[in-house]
């Protein structure tokens, strides 16, 4: 049994906030300009009444429609959000977010949550891929709703000079993302070795905030970025056997921490395998955690840069520190979506 990505979609709530408005000059200590530091121009924030569930459902409906798969044909729903927050910043414990998403979509299928930080959606795709290949399911919805900006405002409420680990929270934005993965006659998805470098597992921690609703994120950003960058080249070279194989990817999409960090990643990629011009980044969403890859794909689609059968490489990084690579061919007819 083979697999393919038959649909994908990103939902960005239409509440756009510029970096100047949210994090004006003077917010960061020592006169550092946030926009110059990160190259993030803006991010999106939930509308009133929206939480992780609503973001996920918006993206899922769009991805299902694009896939041509009916809801009755979906046998598995995996929710991969880091955040499982309702619109009041309350953390959903039970039932799992995947259950709420399935109910909202009217899908009666096995459902559960996967927690693997910003690598969650690629982990979810890997699990779904293996279930399809084992002949257990026909199609799966891998979905995420990231209501992250509660952590951004938690950080802005802190003295950032005294709380430097809160700085990374300023880079985030809200988004929903979804993929439909399906059976296929030919193999159109390949996963590379999934790895957790757990010696770095303490470098980014997302907990419930203390003294206020919602989440709080504490990150040793420089150490985490260095750990990711210093392992990226070797990771790629373990499975990609030649620069020719690597250059067959039309678009390389890394986890989007900041455009500045993606530029640094592109340099590492260029040094390891070349073809760094295929590395894509966006500057108007911020870091949308597990949905960041599909956010870039959607942007490329909007810009008319995606075509049927183009080969995409995803490199997922997540707190943990996890690294997962995958490549896939874009669905036929993607340019008409």
């Amino acid at each position, binding site marked *: 049994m083979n697999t393919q990505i038959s649909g994908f979609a990103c939902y960005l709530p239409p509440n756009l906030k510029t970096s100047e408005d949210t994090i004006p000059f003077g917010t960061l200590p020592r006169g550092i300009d946030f926009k110059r530091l990160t190259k993030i121009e803006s991010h999106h924030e939930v509308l009133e009444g929206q939480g992780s569930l609503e973001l996920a459902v918006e993206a899922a409906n769009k991805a299902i429609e694009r896939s041509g798969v009916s809801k009755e044909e979906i046998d598995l729903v995996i929710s991969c959000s880091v955040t499982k927050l309702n619109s009041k*910043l309350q953390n959903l414990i039970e039932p799992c977010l995947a259950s709420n998403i399935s*109910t909202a979509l009217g899908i009666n299928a096995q459902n559960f949550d996967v927690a*693997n*930080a910003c690598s969650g959606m690629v*982990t979810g795709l890997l699990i779904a891929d293996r279930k399809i290949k084992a002949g*257990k399911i026909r199609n799966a919805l891998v979905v995420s709703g990231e209501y992250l900006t509660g952590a951004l405002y938690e950080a802005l409420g802190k003295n950032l000079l005294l709380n430097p680990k809160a700085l990374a929270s300023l880079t985030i934005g809200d988004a929903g993302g979804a993929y439909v993965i399906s059976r296929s006659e030919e193999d159109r998805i390949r996963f590379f070795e999934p*790895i957790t470098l757990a010696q770095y597992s303490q470098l980014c921690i997302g907990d*419930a905030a203390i003294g206020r*609703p919602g989440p709080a994120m504490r990150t040793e950003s420089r150490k985490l970025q260095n750990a990711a960058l210093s392992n990226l080249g*070797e990771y790629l070279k373990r499975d990609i056997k030649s620069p020719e194989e690597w250059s067959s990817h039309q678009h390389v999409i890394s986890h989007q921490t900041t455009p500045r960090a993606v530029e640094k990643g592109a340099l590492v990629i260029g040094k390891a395998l070349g073809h760094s011009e295929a590395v894509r980044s966006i500057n108007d969403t911020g870091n949308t955690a597990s949905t960041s890859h599909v956010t870039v794909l959607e942007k490329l689609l909007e810009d008319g840069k995606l075509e049927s059968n183009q080969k995409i490489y995803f490199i997922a990084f997540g707190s943990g520190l996890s690294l997962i690579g995958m490549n896939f061919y874009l669905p036929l007819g993607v340019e008409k979506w």
Partner: protein
Amino acid sequence: MVGILAFRFEPINKKSLLKSLKGITHKLCKQHQIDLQDIGLIVHTGTYRQNFRQEPAFAAHLQQALKIGCEDISSSSKHVFSFDVLDGSCGPHHALETIADLLPTMDCKYALFTAGDYRPNKETEWNHNPISFVAIISKDGPLEILDCSFDYKQQNGFTSTAIMNKKYHSEAFTSDPEITNHRIEDDIFIASSEWLSGEQVSRFFEWAKSKNGIITHRIKNRNGRVSNLRWRVNIE
């Protein structure tokens, strides 16, 4: 075919979940002469984490505590993949099935399955006595995972959320949870809805090790979601 090779559990009492799981993993591996470095996949399940933590996966913290696969990547380095699978008390079934799907395609001998819960903080009411549970899963373990089925038609309106209390978040419910009592019907082990993940699996496997043939572990959790995991027991 994937199955449980060995398992071990203990009440967590006043220990941290992490220390408890680390300790019983070491004991289990020593008892069965399993090299920790042969573990290539760690999947954890549970409902509650310390201060309702959202990232990283608990399994990554456990991997670090066990010091396996904790070296930077080189052309010859050996690694581990760790993540969590969650669905309240039904979490163990999804997690075990996920291992059964992934392990045969991975270049490692064993997966480590763990279950257990933390009291999130002192402001959260806590009537549980959680148990930490670990199992080594191999491609030929004697407790073979067969298949899983799910029935969500009886799901009710019970929800649990973490909401801001005085200083910390604490758990709030929309209604009383649905109670299903533990009982055994022929070869079906029906779990109590009040058991957390570690108790779900520890009680089931204690019962299962005296059985042979095909048996079923059924969990109906407190909001009415039902999962059935079928096993083939080949213990001689």
